[in-house]
Structure formats: C-alpha cells, structure tokens
C-alpha cells in the first residue's frame, strides 16, 4: 500500500455482476454506443448458472452470450470485488489487493442471488455444502466420482444440480425436494405454457433416472460417526438415516442486495424495487435479474437487456422486451409460490445448533424478539467475515428479523486498499488493463 493511488476508470455504464443479467446489460449498453465496464468477483464471466472452466461445456445460448460479450467492446474486470459505492456514481473495488475506482454515469446492479442456508444440527460439518454450492465446486474441478452424494433442497435448482452430479460420476443416493407433491406437480403442470422448460425438467430427471427423487422430504440433521457423515431425512411420516460422503443442502435462493442497499435503493420483500425500465429508487441506478426478486435465467436476460438499454439512455428501445419480462415475472412468481419454505424447516434447530457460522453463535444465545442489530451487539451474530450473508437470511427466516443496515466495505477489504479507495479526486488517468 502507499505507492499507488487507486486506478481510476471512467465509464458511461458500470455493471456489477457478469452473470446472464449483467452480460445482457453489457451487450445492449455497449451496442447503444456507450463505454461499458463490467465488474465481477469471480475469475470468469457467467455468474452461477453459466459457470465454466471451458466454454465448450456450456449450452449454446450461454456460449452465444459470452461471445457477444467478448465482441461488445465492454471492458470486463474479473476477480474484482465491489466494496463501496456512492453518489457520482463512484464505485470502489478491489482486484487482488489493488484498489480500482470506477466513475460511471449509470449503474446496473446484476449481483444475482445466493443460496439460503437454514441451520440444522450438523450443518457446519465438512462435507455439507450447498446445492448450487456443490455444483459450483464441481464445475470448478471438485471430483465426486464414486462418492455417495445426497441432495436436499428446493426449487428449479434441484434437478439440474442432481443431473450434473450424476453426470460427474457421483453415486447419487437421494434427491429430496421439500415442497409437497401437490405443489411440485402443480408447478410442473403450469410449465405446459413453456414446453421448452417442461422438456428441460424431464431431461434433467432422466439424467438421474433410477435415483430416489422424493417430494415433501427434507433433511433433519447430520451427524458424524466413525469418520462418516450420516444424514437423517423425513417426509413428515417416517424418518430415516443414511450414510453419505457429500450432502448438498440448501433452502432456495435469496436476492443479493447488499450493493443496492448500500446505495440506498428501496427493497421490497427482499428484492430491489424497480420500475418498468428496471430503474431503482436511486437515480441512474438500475437492477436486473435475481436482485429484483425475479428468479431464473430467462428473466435475467430480458431484464438485463432492458436495464442495459435504459442505463445507456435508450429506454425507449426497451419496449420490445417488456412483454417477455412480464411473462417471466409470472413464471418467477409461480416458482416462488410453489417452492416456498415449509414450517418444519424452522423447527429443525436445537439449542446448540450454530446459527451464525462465522462467530459460532448458537440458537440458544439468540432471542426471537431482537432485531439484527441487537443480536449483533449481544452475541456477535452477523459480525463475522460473511457480513451476515449466511446468518442474515437464516435469522430472518427463524425470527422474522430484518437485516441491519449495510456499510462499506461490502466485502472484507485490506485496510490499505480501503484507504486508497477513499482518496477523493486523487485518481490517476485511464485504465491500466
């Protein structure tokens, strides 16, 4: 620290998040002739759903969008985490210990969603991962061949992850969806309007044919015995335990809204509130995809297009996308409704069950009547490295407590970088990439 002030980048449109929404926004904003900068903490674009080591492994639509991004002229900063944002618009980011400041006329927040991890006894044991988490790690090279794997989760993520684990050679033992059969079948029936989605679901299921796939079933606890994990499941009637090498357990997705909240964007029901052109409550700040609460890659692509055009000053051209966006919003609402979490998931916790993983705060230390702030001051819950990304949604689900306010830095950031980012008007010229 010390020698370099932050590198300063000037852009018309800054986009945070290089998943489908961010990519679509970048392509459209760039196509409108604007200088576009995309920032993402991951090493390659694609977000979660299009995560890859080599593009050949991706479906055609993903490859096409990544090619369009390459050709668009947008400048991408990968392995770059946005840690601060403020009026101007001014973003502060960190790339491998170095500060980067971005000045942009408008911003598209395409920060995606994260998994919701609800506590249950044993959830902190090594070998218990997320559902999307396991898929991300497999795509990044984790070997699962021959390992006994179980998946317990909910929602559209479940089937593709099960299929991917099977294709990667896992000894897949159980796929458990917590939603009831009635809800799942009702949701499946609603897919008749979108035959492509229905065919996709059937194909995923076929990819792990022969593996038990249970509805209305969830994991109750995990124990370690003789160096092995044993997961206990229930369907509300019977309860049973099975050994497992890798348990993939999560409870759906929550929008990632930290950046939006730092900027003061209004958030409603956990999603960033946006108007018909994806504009948030903060001038020149747009949000697209999962952060708005509209889940799914189709919604992300359309919302990204609208946001990119609007952020580029071409909102009048976004009209063509709006009917599609409304359709995808309906799909999203149906998804959220079908896979909403059952009450029993609240009752899995015991007094010793860790709720805040970063600070090892057990359920018994927390009072349901506390808000997030009081819980923090009394127990340290939410004060750790993940900055309440894991325990925040957990405590909201368990106690109904709203999240505490968000402050800089959005990610743990070296003090030297934070100091360099704070220097006002002291920026060097141009991009150094």
């Amino acid at each position, binding site marked *: *620290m*010390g020698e370099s002030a932050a590198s300063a980048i000037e852009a018309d449109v800054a986009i945070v998040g290089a998943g489908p929404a961010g990519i679509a926004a970048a392509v459209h904003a760039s196509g409108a002739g604007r200088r576009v900068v995309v920032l993402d903490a991951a090493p390659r674009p694609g977000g979660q759903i299009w995560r890859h080591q080599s593009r050949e492994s991706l479906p055609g639509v993903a490859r096409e969008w990544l090619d369009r991004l390459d050709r668009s002229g947008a400048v991408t900063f990968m392995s770059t985490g946005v840690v*601060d944002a*403020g009026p101007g618009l001014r973003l502060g980011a960190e790339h491998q210990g170095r500060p980067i400041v971005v000045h942009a006329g408008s911003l598209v927040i395409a920060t995606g969603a994260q998994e919701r991890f609800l506590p249950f006894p044993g959830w902190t044991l090594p070998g218990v991962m997320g559902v999307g988490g396991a898929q991300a790690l497999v795509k990044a090279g984790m070997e699962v061949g021959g390992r006994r794997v179980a998946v317990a989760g909910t929602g559209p993520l479940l089937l593709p992850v099960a299929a991917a684990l099977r294709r990667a050679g896992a000894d897949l033992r159980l796929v458990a969806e917590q939603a009831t059969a009635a809800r799942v079948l009702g949701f499946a029936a609603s897919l008749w309007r979108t035959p492509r989605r229905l065919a996709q679901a059937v194909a995923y299921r076929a990819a792990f044919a022969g593996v038990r796939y249970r509805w209305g079933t969830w994991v109750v606890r995990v124990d370690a015995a003789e160096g092995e994990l044993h997961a206990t499941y229930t369907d509300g009637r019977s309860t049973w335990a099975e050994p497992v090498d890798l348990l993939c357990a999560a409870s759906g997705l929550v929008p990632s809204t930290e950046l939006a909240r730092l900027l003061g964007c209004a958030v409603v029901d956990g999603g960033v509130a946006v108007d018909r052109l994806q504009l948030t409550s903060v001038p020149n700040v747009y949000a697209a995809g999962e952060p708005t609460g509209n889940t799914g890659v189709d919604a992300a692509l359309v919302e990204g297009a609208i946001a990119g055009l609007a952020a580029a000053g071409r909102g009048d051209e976004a009209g063509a996308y709006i009917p599609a966006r409304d359709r995808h919003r309906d799909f999203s609402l149906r998804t959220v409704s079908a896979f909403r979490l059952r009450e029993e998931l609240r009752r899995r916790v015991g007094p010793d069950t860790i709720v805040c993983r970063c600070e090892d705060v057990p359920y018994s230390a927390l009072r349901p009547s506390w808000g997030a*702030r*009081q819980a923090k*001051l*009394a127990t*340290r819950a939410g*004060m*750790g*490295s993940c*900055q309440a990304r894991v325990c925040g949604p957990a405590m909201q689900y368990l106690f109904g407590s709203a999240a505490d306010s968000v*402050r*800089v*830095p959005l990610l*743990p*950031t*070296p*003090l*030297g970088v*934070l*100091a*360099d*980012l*704070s*220097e*006002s008007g002291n920026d060097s010229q141009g991009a150094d990439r």
Partner: protein
Amino acid sequence: MTTRPDVIVVGAGIVGAACAYYLARQGRRVAVFDASFAGSGTTAAGMGHIVVMDDSEPQFALTSWSQRLLDDLLPELPADAEFDRCGTLWVAEDEPQLEVARRKLSLYHARGVDAELLEGPGLARLEPMLRKGLAGGLRVPGDGVVYPPAVARWLLHEAVRRGASLMEGRRIEAILPRAVRTADGQLHADVVINAAGAEAARLTPRLPIVPRKGHLVITERAPDTCRHQVVELGYLQSAHTMSTASVAFNVQPRPTGQLLLGSSRELVGWDDSINRELLGRMIRRATAFMPGLARLNALRTWTGFRPATPDKLPLIGEWPEVEGLWIAAGHEGLGITTALGTGALLADLIAGHAPVIDAGPFAPGRALPEAA
C-alpha cells in the same frame, strides 16, 4: 408501572446504567427508560478503553476513581464484559512528544499511577508492529479495555435485581419538573436524571452538549499482532480541536484477535454516514504508525456520536433550572471509563453524602451564564 419510582433515569447507556446501579444499591426505586435497547447508542459505538487521563485535575480524579470502582467490581463482571488489563501504550513520534510523555510520567508517578517510559527500541519490543523511528512512549499497565454494551447490561441487570425497572423501546418526549412525559402519559418521581448522552440537549435544551462524530473500523482476526491499546500522543491534540475534522491513531486488540481502529472527530450534526475521506485519513494515520495494518482485512466500519462539552468535562449534578432534574451526561470520549465514577458521584450527591471527589468542576450549573 404501578408504584411511583424514586428516581427516573433517562437513557440506558453505560452512564445511565451506572446511575441506576448505584442508586438501586442505595435502596431507591429506579425506573430506567431508553428509546431503543440498553447500550445501543454511543455505548455500543465506542472503543471501551478504560484509561486514566491527566488533561486536568478533575479529569484525572474522575478517571482514576472510576478505574478503582471498576477494579472493585471485576470479580462480579460476567465473561461477556471481556475485561482485559492490556494497558495503554502512548506513542511519541518525536522528541517534543516524548517530552509530553515524560511530563505525563512524572504526573502519574506523583499520583501513584504505575507508568513506564520507553525509548524507541523498548517500544519495538512491546509492540513489534510499530514502525521504526518512533521516539518512544509511555506504558500505563493499569489501563484496560471492556466491551461496553455487556457492562451496561450487567449494571442494569444488577439494578433490576434490586428492584429497578428497565423500560426499553420507550422514548421520553419531555422532562418536566419532577416528571417525564412519554407517549403513554406522565410519570412522576422526586428525582429525574438526564443521562441521554449525545441527545441530552434534546430534552434539556440549555445543556452545552453537541454530538462529536467518530469513525471506527474493525478487522478480521489477527491474533498476537497487538497487545496494548496503542494511542498516539497526538491524540490529545485531536481531542482538543473542536472546529475542524481530525484523526488520531488509536488501536485496540479485541479478545477475538480482531483489531479495533480509531479515531476521528468532527462536528457534522447527526449525520451518521461513513465519511470516506475521513475514514481514509484515519486508516492512513494508523498505517503510518503500524504499516503492517494495511494488509489486514477491514470487516466493518461504523460511526458514533460522543457527547461533547466546551470545557471537556462531563456535567454531573443538579440542574438549577428544572426542579428535581439532575444531569449525568457530556462525557465525550471518556464515557466508558468514567461511567462508574459518574454514577457513584451522582448517587452520593443526590443522597447528600460527601462526594469522594470534588464535584464542583462537574456542576452542570457552570454552563449557565448566570453562574459567574
């Protein structure tokens, strides 16, 4: 609340909690009110440094007596109060500051406070993270740190055990002669104590208390990097500069191994947002003393409002303008250190007992122009 309390305390921060504690110990019926929850305001924002200060005789008297009161209570404090007698290390950048350190040393020794002067090499042995080339420092081993919200909670818990009531989430709208008004109506008591800290002047407008904003940063765990509360002697200049924004190096090791970093001072009303530029100045001031800090990851930043008075002394005593009203507020950055002394002093004054330290310099009436 069915029976009329003897005392109403407005504010359940550490100062209000200490008042409640000592008054309840006297057998009085105490009702403590807080608009939010106990210890949620300035008490939660500060560093929790328990430090003897010698800027003035009254300040020395109050801080050292408070330290002794805390020492008496240590065996009873719960684990989550996290008391650690890590000592203070005052750091001198240059020879003039080292001279200040020498003067502090003689003053402390003259008053029986254990202190040790160090030249540069000795400093490095005590705190290896400090950069080379510093002139020296003063180590005060009797100082320590606590986690203030837990201390405030414990003091209130002890008061409640002796019959006090704690009313959280109940905002006091006005202080009247021998009464307070809430949304539910009026509550009467012979004694009302304004312990509302930085907000005290909202209820008692002629109190010369203004919010003096400070920034803090906490890092990820970095065990065994820092052993004392390390403060630059230049801090004393920062604390005395009322007008412009200032920063001073101040770092504290937490029991978790995290480092708590401060400090800044500015007068910007009630704007609690993070001032990025001042935050950067504060961090750079810290890394100028401990370069290795630059690599540690900052986890959180926050701000707090110190209740500042013009003469840098708190207001402890009777308020001449309102019948039955007493003040326990205006502690600037020493509220945690001096809470116990404040509570004990006020309890003595209310009871008509001879105070252990001279209460004159703290008399709230000194703020009024008539008092000449």
